[in-house]
């Protein structure tokens, strides 16, 4: 690809980049073959908000049981369907749920998120999922959500990657616009091949504190410098990638992860997930131009012995809610940084518990959005009915009342300042739900 497209992509430069030039350049890098024909063109950038939010996207992999995370304690059918793994009512003597709105309650292990909910900064969306496809395969459902267009085998870029590719960088020349806290880049962040519009500068970094070429610290500068010189004459796109990587190494070296001091007395758990969010917080406060982070929380696929109160799911929820609660206190609660957090899973689980005190792959689940710009403090549902068999999808699952794309579309448009919704969620016609303030 040409050098022009790697020039600083600040607003001024952007405005000079005419549509005609974009089309010409893209033709030479075979963008036509990389972009499915149906992908719409991107709008001009004049209207982009300058003080948009940073987004932290958390994927609960494995199909988290939404009826454990956020239990409909006001529905007797819930307790009938789950004789051994229901969350007790908020007025129960032991292990009471955390009352949210008189009908739904957090599992006790989700209490770490209660302050955000009480401050009306946390929105629960229940019965959320994929409306246009009823797959119950992890494999398919995760992919469908991450790419932002279900059941299309031709698309392998992610919705967040396309968001970054269709909006100018918040900080011109930022070497790291987005980070996937993972060893390999999550699909959510995969950008259109060749970054034909804006360079998305996205890297998978499992441990931002140790992001270097490795080896002896005594010689690392000399070796990195040698490579920098060596790649200065490399062919594109490798040259730009190499320079980006070296700039990111320098950038992360300058961030004080080790001595990072939280605000608001926040304490992150020492788990990998907790430390991942702590690193993201440090990056956000270092003000290096980070716009998006994708963090995964694994192992929610509990077909047996769910253990919502003291068992394995309780443990997972405690880690999740403590870590996200700490992030909320540290980064969001004081209103000093513009950040939105979203949490979702590929599907919810069957309403009735199975013979092994677990649940199987289902449909509608719980989704969360947190931020000062989120219309929180409530549980948003659509056509939520009691969990009697007749009301369930295929007689077994919570129906998907709200498509995940409706939640994300509003956040992309209102909080991330990107009007290119048909590029981020192709062919989806979003319904505004009032997710944002």
């Amino acid at each position, binding site marked *: *690809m*040409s050098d022009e497209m790697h020039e600083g992509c600040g607003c001024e430069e952007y405005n000079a980049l005419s549509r005609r030039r974009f089309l010409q350049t893209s033709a*030479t*890098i*075979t963008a036509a073959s*990389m972009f499915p024909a149906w992908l719409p063109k991107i709008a001009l950038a004049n209207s982009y908000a300058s003080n948009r939010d940073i987004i932290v996207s958390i994927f609960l992999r494995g199909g988290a049981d939404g009826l454990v995370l956020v239990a409909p304690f006001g529905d007797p059918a819930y307790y009938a369907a789950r004789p051994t793994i229901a969350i007790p009512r908020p007025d129960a003597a032991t292990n009471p749920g955390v009352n949210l709105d008189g009908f739904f309650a957090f599992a006790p292990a989700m209490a770490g998120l209660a302050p955000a909910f009480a401050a009306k900064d946390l929105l629960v969306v229940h019965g959320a999922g994929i409306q246009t496809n009823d797959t119950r395969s992890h*494999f398919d459902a995760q*992919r469908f959500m991450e790419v932002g267009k279900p059941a299309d*085998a*031709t698309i*392998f870029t992610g919705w967040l990657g396309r968001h970054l590719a269709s909006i100018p960088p918040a900080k011109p020349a930022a070497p790291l616009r987005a980070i996937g806290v993972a*060893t*390999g*880049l999550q699909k959510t962040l995969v950008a259109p*091949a*060749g*970054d034909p519009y804006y360079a998305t500068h*996205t*890297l*998978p970094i*499992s441990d931002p504190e140790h*992001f*270097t*070429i*490795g*080896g*002896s610290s005594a*010689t690392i500068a*000399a*070796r990195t410098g*040698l*490579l920098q*010189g*060596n*790649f200065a*004459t*490399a*062919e*594109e*796109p*490798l040259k730009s*990638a*190499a320079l*980006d*990587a070296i700039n*990111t*190494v320098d950038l992360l070296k300058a961030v004080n992860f080790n001595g990072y001091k939280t605000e608001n007395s926040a304490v992150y758990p020492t788990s990998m997930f907790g430390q991942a969010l702590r690193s993201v917080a440090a990056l956000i406060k270092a003000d290096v131009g980070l716009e998006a982070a994708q963090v995964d929380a694994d192992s929610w696929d509990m077909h047996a012995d769910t253990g919502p109160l003291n068992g394995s799911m309780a443990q997972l929820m405690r880690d999740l809610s403590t870590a996200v609660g700490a992030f909320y206190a540290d980064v969001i609660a004081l209103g000093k940084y513009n950040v939105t957090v979203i949490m979702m899973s590929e599907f919810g689980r069957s309403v009735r518990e199975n013979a092994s005190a677990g649940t199987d792959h289902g449909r509608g689940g719980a989704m969360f959005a947190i931020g000062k710009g989120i219309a929180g403090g409530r549980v948003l549902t659509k056509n939520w009915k009691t969990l009697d068999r007749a009301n369930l999808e295929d007689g077994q699952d919570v129906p998907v009342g709200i498509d995940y794309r409706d939640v994300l579309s509003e956040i992309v448009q209102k909080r991330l300042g990107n009007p290119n919704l048909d590029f981020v969620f192709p062919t989806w016609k979003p319904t505004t739900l009032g997710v944002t303030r």
Partner: protein
Amino acid sequence: MSRSSSSTDATETPDATPTARRTFVALGALAAASFIPRTARAQQGRPRKSRPTDRVEPPNVPPQPGVAPGENAAAFAEWDTGGLSRLVRRMTMGMTGADLAQANQMGWNGYLNYQLNYSRIDDSAVENWIAAHYPYLVKPTAELVLINYDDVFDQLRGASMYRAVFSKRQLFQRMVEFWTDHFNQDRNKVESLLVNDQRDVIRKYAMTTFPQLLKASAHSGSMMVYLDQNVSDAKAPNQNYAREIMELHTLGVDGGYTQNDVAELSRVLTGWTVDHDGDFAYNPSLHDTKDKVVLGTTIKGQSGAAGQQEGEAVLDLLVNHPSTARFIATKMLKWMVTPTPTVAQISGIAAVYRATGGDIKAMLRAMLNEQWVSQAPMKLKRPFHYAVSALRSLNPSVTSTKPVDEGLMQLLGHEAYVWDTPDGYPDKIDYWAGSILPRWQCATTLSQFQSSATIAVDTAPYRAGSPAAAVDLIDHNFFGGEMPVTFRTALLSYAGTTTLTDAKVRELLALAISSNAFHWY
């Protein structure tokens, strides 16, 4: 530019024809400017014996370089001799000095024939090692399903890595990688069945004919499961396999089939499923016995065991379809020769497919001609190729490649058999180029291996002489003697003049693997 040997600088007339010259001139200035002189010089530099009289001509195609504006053809010329070394790069999982020496001895067609006739290459050392270390890989499905699937999988990818690194049948390994992506499956869905698919489909038929390969794949229990053919029946035909066999395996997405063909083929294939163990089986009770029309051909509905013949007939339709010839020719050209094959190149190789009944060796022989390969732009190694090539050059003693198979390949985003969609890992530079730091980290990790339980890189040969001699040896092992001059200067400077330590050698090795030139082939 460094030459492998100055003694080859003979004064032979370049064999590029005037026609070829004119075509070069007609090229876009971008590609041509730095391209022509290098090619011409390289051709002058080859000894006579490397151009035997029986050289394979391009299949009746006017010479056209497979270079589009913006493609990176020029960079090749910065650091290679433009001749035989390019063929070795294309045909191996990483060119070492030994590979290049062997090719120089055999000449272009000698080396090509040597690798094409892979079954005549004695690979018993590698196969004996695999048999001793990975006994699960010869077991039938019924036994495999009883074994912890993570253990089975460790052996499968371990064998794949070991063969790619150490097998002398390097072109064969390249084709195994190619077909593995072409008939991609996700191990998370098919689990241990993948062993059979790799063994009895991909490796068995990788260099036979495409019809044989396609039919073997269509009779693979693993493929049935991966593309949901095993949950299809007459009442509710699942279209997944019917679609992908046309879109991804044979005709290509623009190959001229319709959604109606997908629906009809899904009915034809009802009954194609797996048995209790996961082996392929035909179950007549699931079959739709009514007539169908696929690609304009009426498939007479049949019941009982004969119902399977409907599907067999469609497989014949598919492998004999002109779109399949073009689709396979295009994809193989992109893999072996150039990311941007010309229309003429595609037509030429498709013609070979049609003339030979889809003979994979014949197609390879036709496309790996001196003209096309010498004019092709360089390609970025995908991470698997990159890691394998590093190991080939490091030539370590290996007890287990697990740290590479698992941690490093995850780091590089190219772990074996986990690409979830049926299109397989992309072979596109734009997909891979962004993730360069993991490659440098990988280079550091590989160079530091010194475990007798896994991988041990011996630095002694590099410490036997002066630092300059060590750089020469690196040049030989990692670049076939074609290390770019500027990098050599930088590496010599880094090496210094005092006796090299083990640690310093490992740093030099990591720098060599990290350097720009080592990422391309």
